[in-house]
């Protein structure tokens, strides 16, 4: 069973057969021919270093003491490994405010992801497989909302939350994330669902299955890869958010990004805390990224407009 709506190319892999015997295929091989494959490889290694070194800088800074960070560059760790210490990490994990903010990040991210998956898959199924008047216009409405800037909603929703008394609550932050995750989620799933072979659905319907059963027994299992893409994307998006929480969370509901940004003012003297906190906050996304890279890439490719 293939899904025509999600790119099924090799994603990060590129063409399956990297070095075939046939000469002079593709622009790359021509470039390789002219400059020598060695030159291109060296250039690409340098580029990769450009991408890696900044992250290494953060990691190394987090593994050095406050005084070392104030006195010398993080790269001196390579020649003076005695600087290596986990002190920053133990300090940070002993800080109850930081721990609470990590907990808040989880409390915000998990419900916001689950809710988006549930609500959007229901809506996407209706848009893909149930006939009703105005369906096309509704779908186009979802496409239009894909690019709506969050900034437009900040003031109106802040006002609304103020009136309802949910300003500063985790619920408020979660619902905002769910709503702004929906256009992308519905769009992605609708495209995937409508690519499901019609015969499969018809067969289920002939058996007298109700729509909800068709949805549960046929569409959901088939749509699992797309749902996985969506869940990962939404998870990362909410986990990494700063702006929404900056506006709608208070001190008790602040996620890690908001808790850390208060330290930015004295950046120089807070390098140990900021680098350690940032690296810890990156760990979950990085694990998710490396573990589910395929789905992540598919999500990005399918929902280019986010």
């Amino acid at each position, binding site marked *: 069973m293939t899904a025509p709506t999600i790119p099924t190319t090799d994603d990060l892999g590129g063409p399956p057969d990297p070095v075939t015997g046939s000469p002079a295929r593709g622009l790359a091989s021509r470039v390789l021919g002219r400059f020598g494959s060695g030159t291109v490889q060296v250039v690409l290694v340098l580029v990769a270093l450009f991408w890696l070194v900044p992250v290494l800088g953060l990691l190394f800074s987090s593994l050095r003491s406050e005084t070392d960070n104030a006195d010398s560059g993080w790269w001196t760790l390579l020649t003076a490994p005695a600087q290596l210490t986990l002190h920053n990490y133990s300090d940070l994990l002993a800080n109850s405010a930081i721990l609470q903010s990590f907990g808040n990040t989880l409390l915000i991210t998990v419900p916001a992801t689950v809710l988006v998956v549930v609500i959007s898959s229901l809506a996407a199924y209706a848009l893909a497989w149930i006939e*009703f008047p105005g369906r096309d216009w509704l779908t186009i409405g979802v496409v239009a909302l894909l*690019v709506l800037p969050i900034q437009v909603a900040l003031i109106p929703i802040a006002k609304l939350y103020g009136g309802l008394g949910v300003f500063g609550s985790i619920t408020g932050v979660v619902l905002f994330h769910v709503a702004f995750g929906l256009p992308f989620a519905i769009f992605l799933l609708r495209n995937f669902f409508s690519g499901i072979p019609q015969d499969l659905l018809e067969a289920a319907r002939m058996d007298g299955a109700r729509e909800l059963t068709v949805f549960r027994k046929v569409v959901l299992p088939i749509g699992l890869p797309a749902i996985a893409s969506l869940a990962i994307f939404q998870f990362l998006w909410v986990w990494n958010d700063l702006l929404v929480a900056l506006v709608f969370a208070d001190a008790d509901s602040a996620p890690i990004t908001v808790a850390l940004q208060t330290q930015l003012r004295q*950046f120089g003297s807070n390098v140990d805390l900021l680098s350690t906190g940032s690296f810890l906050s990156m760990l979950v996304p990085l694990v998710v990224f490396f573990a589910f890279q395929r789905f992540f890439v598919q999500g990005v490719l399918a929902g280019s407009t986010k």
Partner: protein
Amino acid sequence: MTVGPAGTTEATPDRRDDLAAARGPQAAKSSRRKRTPGWLALLFLLPALVLLGVYLVYPVVYSVVRSMFDSDGNRFVGLNNYGEAFTDPSTRTALKNNLIWVLVAPTVVTVFGLLFAVLTERIRWAVAFRMVLFMPMAISLFASGVIFRLVYQEDPELGVANAAAVTVHDAFAAPSHYPGVRLRDGQGTVVGDGDYLTAKTYRPGDVVNLPLVGMQATALPPGASGAITPGGGSTALRGAAWLDVALLHGHPNAIDKVEKGAPGLTVQAVKDGAVVATTTTGADGTFSFPDLAPGDYRVQLPGSNFAAPFRGLTWLGPGLVTPVIISCWIWIMTGFAMTFIAAGLAAIPRDALEAARVDGGTEWQVFRKVTVPLIGPVLLVVFVTLVINVLKIFELVYVIAPGASQASANVLALQMWQVSFGAGGGDQGLGSAIGVILFLLVLPAMLFNIRRFRRERR
């Protein structure tokens, strides 16, 4: 390759009716059950519709209305807030910066993406390379901001950007060991670019004393040895430059026992205002011009000997902060563009390329005439996506720009937040107006998406 057509959906009702008709009354009955659930669709859609309505549609309307009221929301002011947005200096800076962002950043990222996608097509470790470049997409913008604040720290001892800049600079222009050092008063005059020229003139065979002051003996370059006066009997113009500390019983302008020579200084012989010979002092501070024609010379120590060392650039200062933040965004988004374009390249039918080659096209022609037109739509989608992303940029500026230069790095999304929620802000009329301006800026992209969507459904 991006978002496939949904043609199957369109065909659904007709085929269903055909099926129903073919199967007679029994099938028609079940078909009616299938055709009725308009209310069921509503049930499936209800939670999404409520959330989209409350959080996305209503705010647009509210913002447009609110933008025409004053900061308290009590007085109707028409379009005054928009007028203020275009005259208020900080909002204008934000608009100007957004323009720079839109003009520069998406183009650079698209070009990089295409370049790396093509270059990695035939590389064995393409997967690893693409993974490395794609990784920043998973990291929060906040963490990326912290990463680049570290990279661009001003002290070259701390920030890797300036450390690299200083290393490269010093590789081409050797650093001076004598910053701030000067010739002892009365021994010479400063001319031109801080060059020291001796007051007296000398002839070949004379010995020149160049007593230096203004540094600690411990700061001398390693290897500096005890200063000596060059011996007589030579016909060369020669002398010694040394650190004339003149401690306790020492004598100014004379070489004492404890004093050390100043090695590595550039010394020039000047005749009639023109440099005729150049040499460098040795470990004991001595120098000599052996082959001078007879005549009167002055000796000069070029100012470069005493230049302050290069310390790199003030990356996070008002002048460079926007390019620096753009560089961080490029670091984040290039992987996205590359992955997207690589998927597009992989989808190009090999036949088309082979046919063009068989017809005798060079690789460059094939690239321009076949690949680019085929990949063009993908590039456009990438570009539009990047433009939308750029317009909403907030976190990077908020995190990377230090307080002092944040005003220079301002962008609309940040300005909107500052005006509405930031310290000293609270003008939700102006904030709403900026929000609406942002909305208007992404409107073309919205229409682009709708058109693309409708075309692909056909």
